[in-house]
């Protein structure tokens, strides 16, 4: 049996193991605590414009996402999501596509050990697992996420959990995957088998620091090994008011024309109240998606708010500089609707 066969055999055995051994709720809990079905969807409207020559403003619905969760009992649940996306890059280029975003079985054994099987979010760093516009606090993603150098979604299995040491939470996520990068065709990872480990320590709403390490090997091209390290830190400088965050990605490639890719961002977020904030971010990195691997730097200011339970609004301005090109400004507005 080859590697792929072994992978799927382990996957199916684990899935059936979870299904068979998911016990009913323990005595301490009522027979059915949570709703069995949860359905949801969100949509948004995006406006983007910049002062580059020949640019055309974009003003269209950018996302439509449907998702569903089914909970069998306290331990076992299923999550599925399909989404349509139409989101331009910094050059104004975009494609419309619809994808099965997530489809997985989750087995919650205990705080320390849990399992996801299927197509799942890649739990590496801070921004990657929350990469959707509706859950971010900016309109443009950081360069390291916009390029999806590490795939946003992976297909495989993930072991995750957390341990508590007094008032600290030590969390981990280990994944074995067969990844498919759906955003950047000439990304270092197009389709590859990989392994990833993310470990972090946090004190809730005070700080979080961690590192993700990934390894990918493309079976079609033995020269396309990729290793990546993503250290990150988040710190409430003034608890409840001022948040700082930084992530730095360094990927070592084994290809003929490049030997590494680097990208990082650092940001400050001022929380005015529960619903409104101001976000300042500085980005720098190799931008494969928008400018064919040249270096781009960007300074971004975002003002965001939440109105009622349904609406999230943001306005954003940025100044961008691409290697060997004149500086340009971009401004954007975004409205997200959850229902």
């Amino acid at each position: 049996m080859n590697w792929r066969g072994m992978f799927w055999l382990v996957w199916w055995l684990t899935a059936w193991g979870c299904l068979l051994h998911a016990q009913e709720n323990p005595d301490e809990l009522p027979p059915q605590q949570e709703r069995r079905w949860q359905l949801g969807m969100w949509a948004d409207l995006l406006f983007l414009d910049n002062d580059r020559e020949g640019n055309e403003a974009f003003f269209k619905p950018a996302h439509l996402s449907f998702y569903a969760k089914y909970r069998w009992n306290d331990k076992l649940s299923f999550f599925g999501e399909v989404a349509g996306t139409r989101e331009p890059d910094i050059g104004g280029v975009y494609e419309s596509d619809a994808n099965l975003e997530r489809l997985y079985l989750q087995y919650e054994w205990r705080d320390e050990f849990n399992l996801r099987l299927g197509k799942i979010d890649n739990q590496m760093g801070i921004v990657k697992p929350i990469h959707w516009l509706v859950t971010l606090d900016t309109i443009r993603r950081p360069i390291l996420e916009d390029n999806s150098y590490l795939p946003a979604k992976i297909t495989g299995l993930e072991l995750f959990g957390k341990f508590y040491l007094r008032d600290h939470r030590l969390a981990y996520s280990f994944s074995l995957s067969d990844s498919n990068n759906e955003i950047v065709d000439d990304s270092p990872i197009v389709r590859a088998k990989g392994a990833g480990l993310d470990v972090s320590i946090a004190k809730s709403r005070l700080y979080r620091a961690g590192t993700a390490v990934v390894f990918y090997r493309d079976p079609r091209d033995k020269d396309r090994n990729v290793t990546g390290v993503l250290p990150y830190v988040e710190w409430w400088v003034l608890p409840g008011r001022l948040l700082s965050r930084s992530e730095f990605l360094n990927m070592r490639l084994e290809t003929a024309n490049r030997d590494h890719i680097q990208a990082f961002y650092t940001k400050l977020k001022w929380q005015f109240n529960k619903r409104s904030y101001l976000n300042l971010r500085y980005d720098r990195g190799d931008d494969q998606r928008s400018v064919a691997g040249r270096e781009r730097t960007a300074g971004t200011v975002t003002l965001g708010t939440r109105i009622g339970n349904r609406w999230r609004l943001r306005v954003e301005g940025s100044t961008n500089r691409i290697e060997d090109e004149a500086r340009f400004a971009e401004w954007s507005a975004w409205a997200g609707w959850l229902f």
Partner: protein
Amino acid sequence: MERLGGVAVLKHVLSLLLLLGLSTPLTAQDLIIVVSKKSPIKEISLFQLREIYLGNMKRLAGKTVRPIHVKPDDPLRHAFEDLVFPANFDAEEYWQNSKLQGGPDPPPAVRGWGLVSAYIAKNPGFVGYLPAEKITEVEAMQLKVVTVAGD
């Protein structure tokens, strides 16, 4: 005579305030944290309470633990959230994002502290909160008060 007049004025002012619904909001001192009498939990830190009410921590003292809330419009809930969560923490957004990301489900919420006590008495794995004035009735409800330590 003059003193009686002052009291009368004060009564009028208080009546007027009550009439206008300007009662003093509840504070952290106005609530107690309770678990079932059968629960091994005796003390809990604010950090642990926060983790439990955010769906992160599901075991404590070797036993399953789950949170229960009163409804969002209840002043007791506001007092609890002010005690446990930091300033400007938007719990509503947190649960919306959790739902979008397939994360933990929000705690069940019942109408009034009476249902909280009944729920915990019936399901010993739950932790909840009651008005502090009910401290003398906790024993009769088959509950016990848990000491809350700082962060």
